[in-house]
């Protein structure tokens, strides 16, 4: 386990920025109550076996006792590095993203299952959509009951969505909670 170096940190923050925008500050400077002290520590990112973990400092300190081959997970995993060296956010980051998301989309109840199977979001499935989404932004997908279902990349801006035909893709799927059941081994 080691802290991220410059390149890695910038890659991670870039991805996060797409989803949370200026709320990135919240993520980085989140006061954490996990340590035994009453002074809230801070959260930090650590790299371990090609996965990036988001954990509070006190947790990280304690976790240094654990040897490298024996450490499986630390706090929350937010993404991993592929063989090619690019960073992808995984579904486990959803909680973090959903709390700080700038762009949101709400799905109709009938179309929830389709998204949870890994399909893209079509216009016919849209219940609500936040304004001022532009193409290529990160979008967090919710159900009408405000339950976070996953996230993806916007294919079109909000205005274009209105003009789109019902079968057009609005959000390109990147990760959804159904992966916990479908692809548990690959997480």
């Amino acid at each position: 386990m080691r802290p991220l170096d410059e390149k890695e940190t910038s890659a991670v923050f870039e991805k996060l920025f797409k989803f949370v925008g200026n709320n990135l500050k919240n993520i980085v400077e989140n006061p954490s109550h996990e340590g035994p002290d009453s002074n809230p520590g801070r959260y930090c990112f650590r790299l371990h076996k090609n996965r990036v973990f988001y954990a509070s400092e006190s947790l990280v300190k304690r976790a240094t006792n654990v040897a490298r081959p024996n450490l499986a997970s630390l706090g929350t995993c937010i993404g991993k590095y592929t063989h090619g060296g690019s960073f992808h956010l995984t579904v486990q980051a959803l909680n973090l993203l959903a709390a700080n998301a700038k762009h949101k989309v709400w799905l109709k109840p009938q179309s929830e299952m389709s998204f949870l199977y890994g399909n893209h979001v079509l216009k016919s499935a849209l219940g609500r959509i936040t304004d001022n989404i532009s193409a290529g932004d990160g979008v967090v997908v919710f159900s009408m009951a405000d339950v976070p279902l996953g996230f993806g990349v916007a294919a079109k801006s909000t205005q274009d969505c209105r003009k789109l035909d019902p079968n057009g893709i609005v959000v390109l799927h990147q990760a959804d909670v159904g992966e916990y059941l479908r692809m548990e081994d690959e997480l």
Partner: protein
Amino acid sequence: MAPPRKKPSKPRKSPKNPKRTEPKHDSSDESEEEMPPQQLELGDDGADSDSASELSSDGDDPLADDFLQGSDDEEKASGSDSGSGSGSDSDDDDIEKKSRAIDEEKAREEEDAEAEMQLNINQESDEFRLPTKEELEEETLRPPDLTNLQRRIKEIVRVLSNFKALRQEGSTRKDYVEQLKKDISTYYGYNEFLIGALVEMFPVVELMELIEAFEKPRPVCLRTNTLKTRRRDLADVLINRGVNLDPLSKWSKVGLVVYDSQVPIGATPEYMAGFYMLQSASSFLPVMALAPQEKERVVDMAAAPGGKTTYIAALMKNTGIIFANEMKVPRLKSLTANLHRLGVSNTVVCNYDGKELPKVLGVNAVDRVLLDAPCSGTGVISKDESVKTSKSLEDIQKCAHVQKELILAAIDMVDANSKSGGYVVYSTCSIMVAENEAVIDYALKKRDVKLVPCGLDFGRPGFIRFREQRFHPSLEKTRRFYPHVHNMDGFFVAKLKKMSSSKPGAKPSETAEEEETTTSVKEKEKSTDGIKENGNVSSEPESKKMKKRKFPSKPSNGLKEKGKESSESEPKKRMKRQFPSKEEISKAREEKRNALREKKRKGSKKQQKQK
């Protein structure tokens, strides 16, 4: 005309009858039947004729005979009439006879029927008869007759519950129990070891209830993830989806039991979003007993698949630190997945053998430890039927051995002086005494811990004694749960509080010996220091602790000797187990004392000489 039909008085008849009958008898043999009645009447009539013609009869016998013969015809006629009368009489007799015969038959039938009924009643209420050897051999040849087995099992249970009254002569209780065991293992599919163990633990009627309960699955339960939602809201959402559920019981505020569901309960969007966890009701119990507080440090030594770990995190509200350990690599994935799905962020997942954890995380380092030990699984037969046949005595003993090592490691990790904690909760999903009470008893002997109430009052207290074993009386604070009583999987929970970090190593065993050697090594160092510095105070309490009886009470002349005694007492203590060498030691001591005295003398002599 003649008064032959007059019936004379009898005295007249009698003398003449013999005369008349004799010749008649001689003459007529053929028609004897008709003759005798007629004879009598003839005789009567003859008497009449005689009486009528006494005067003439004496004289003329042939006339009389003729007369008689004439009367014979008449008599015959009358005889035939009377014969037919007696024939009609005999007809009447026949009917009477027949009716009598019919009545008799009826009576006989009734008797038989009654006798049969009595016999039947007797057979039914007759004592259940144990099958003989021949019958048993026959049975083994045929395919098992299930209804017969079931009937026999029920009969034996009935007999055993009222043994004095219903027992068969010449059969002991043991015979009945043996037959019951065989029948149960054939009917339900248990192996001999397991059914023997169960018979020892439960009375017969309860045993049948338990076995029946093992055949049926327990209801599916789920636990609300309080980090993300509340039980009421979750119940509403699930009911909308078409799930039929109810709150679990009054002892749990987060549990729900599912009766049936239109959608797969493990694949709803709420499940995927981490609002609840599918977990058996018995798995709630050890975490409730542990009662972790916020901002504590907790270790879960056998965490996969993560139901209990996530419950702990929910109770701690994502504060503090949890170390979730799992020994088997394939199970780590499901553990991490569940942790992330339920939104737990205060956990470190590591992959160690539980026994190594104190070295990794440090001794006296955490506030609470949960040990849900790997066990034989005899309490969850309803989930896994293979346990019925696959467990043997060696399996149980192996499990018990591992569990004992793990519980010592767990106790070592806990900080006895923790402000809010200092607790270890030990739980298994097994009902075997060797894996439950015996392990706790071992821990009580090996470490300075004591049992405290779990807070789960609806369970049954654990065994304080079992067959020939006697456990510490505080074991009644542990709790046992059974499927047929609590409608949960078989489970055992115990909560220990660590009083201090000292290790009273009373009995010799592997770890005890290690402790003794390490402490004796320390003692040796201290005592060597003592010899040099005369600081024997520190070594004394150690030595006192180590050997309770054996502190040498001999008067010590000098501090040197004291120090030497303590150093010598160590080989003495180590050689405690070999008694003959005492004499050697005392001899060695004597020699050393003599040597010392000589040294003193020499030294003093030298001094004197120098002077």
